């Protein structure tokens, strides 16, 4: 650690002496000697605690690792709550967000998004008993979502007559649905499929997606050097097939999902 900080200080001094480098985020990360990545830690298979090793692992974590490797520093993970994601980034407590962060125009005013590294089908889960089979069937009903999530905002936008009831985490929202306190639960398809499988109360995922949402890594605005590096890393990893390898590790054959990547890794167009 000490060696790192000495090296970091030397690098910072060198940068200062050379007179060209402004203290930008990329230089800060290099000087600090680690990349701090904000991730959820509660969202399998994106970021969750491995049952045996107790370490936070997942698709989001692997993507962040690629960025850290490209910068040439070790990765440090910081677990954060869904609704705290953007404030944590803005206040500089994390360098980058890999935290199920869906693109919305409102968020894009606050932070920059990298190329999309995942595209999420936002769907609705309901109990068999409600008999609802389409998104239209939820008009005037109660729908739950995670507090501060884009799913919540999507429900408000697309089913304006529905009442949204938000909870702090997936388990509370799911329990509310299982106990008939709400009629539906809006979240990423992957989360819902897993919940529906584990549920004792018979549940169904509504086939048609409510909306489709590209996920990007969250970056602070006004850091062009870091953003370019992140996007180049994603583009390179796509070209070399590394992204596909990572994707199939978490979602491919042998996992509960067994899906293929069917979206491009590219700039998110608002």
């Amino acid at each position, binding site marked *: 650690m000490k060696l790192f900080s000495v090296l970091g200080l030397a690098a910072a001094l060198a940068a200062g002496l050379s007179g060209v480098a402004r203290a930008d985020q990329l230089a800060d990360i290099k000087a600090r000697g680690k990349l701090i990545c904000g991730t959820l830690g509660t969202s399998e298979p994106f970021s969750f605690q491995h049952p045996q090793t107790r370490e936070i692992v997942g698709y989001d974590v692997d993507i962040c690792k690629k960025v850290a490797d490209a910068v040439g520093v070790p990765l440090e993970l910081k677990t954060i709550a869904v*609704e705290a994601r953007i404030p944590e980034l803005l206040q500089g407590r994390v360098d980058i967000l890999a935290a199920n962060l869906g693109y919305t125009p*409102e968020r894009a005013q606050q932070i920059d998004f990298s190329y999309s590294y995942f595209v999420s089908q936002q769907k609705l889960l309901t109990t068999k008993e409600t008999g609802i089979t389409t998104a239209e069937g939820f008009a005037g009903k109660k729908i739950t979502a995670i507090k501060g999530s884009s799913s919540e905002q999507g429900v408000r936008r697309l089913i304006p007559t529905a009442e949204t009831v938000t909870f702090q985490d997936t388990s509370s929202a799911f329990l509310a649905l299982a*106990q008939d306190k709400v009629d539906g639960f809006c979240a990423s398809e992957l989360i819902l499929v897993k919940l529906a499988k584990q549920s004792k109360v018979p549940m169904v995922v509504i086939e048609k997606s409510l909306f489709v949402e590209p996920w990007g890594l969250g970056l602070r605005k006004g850091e062009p050097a870091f953003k370019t590096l992140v996007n180049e890393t994603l583009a390179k990893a796509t070209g070399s097939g590394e992204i596909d390898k990572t994707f199939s590790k978490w979602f491919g054959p042998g996992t509960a999902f067994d899906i293929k990547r069917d979206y491009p890794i590219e700039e998110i167009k608002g």
Partner: protein
Amino acid sequence: MGYVFDLGSVLSGKYLDWFLIGIATTLALTVVAWCLAIAMGIILTLVRMIPFRPLGWFVALYVEYHRNVPLLVQIFLWYFGVPSLLPRPARQWINAHHGEFLLAAIALGLAAAAYVAEDIRSGIRSIPKAQYEAARSIGFGYLGAMGYVVLPQALRISVPPLINQTLLLFKNTSLAMAIGVGELTYRTREVDSYTFKTFEAFAVATAVYLAISFAIMALGSWSGTRLKLETR
């Protein structure tokens, strides 16, 4: 880069509506829970004074449970636990009639009742026992002696601590956010997650909570002077 404090952005359009709904819900929750707390508090106090030991133990147990288990846990228990013990039609009725509000009010009210019971009991203990005995000796029954002689004085003495409990109850309503009751804190966080104006959103909430707290305190001191008995 300086922070631009922009209250207007959270106090306009739908965000203002959300705040207003939140304030109304917070007040409604406070009033319902308060009525329950006072009613239950008086009942507990009366039960405790019945000279039958097990009843006294029951009240002591009630008070200890509600004072020693975190309120958030009590709220979760009422919201996720209790309804699953009820028969199906009752559960459906609760779910269809804003169960989260009802159950939060019950949880908050019952917890506050434990404190209210303690406060009233201290009030009653401050009334000399001779007054009760005198009332009984001129023909009042137990309820008459309590209702006409002891409680009117005891409740007046209990007013200042009860105002304190009211303030606590009012602030504790913010915990109902955890089970999806759309009260002020819930709405504040919603405004925050839409606008990302964290500072402004919580500044508004702080101002509203302060204003209502002061109003409760003012009401308390006003009723304190109104209710004061001339001592002879």
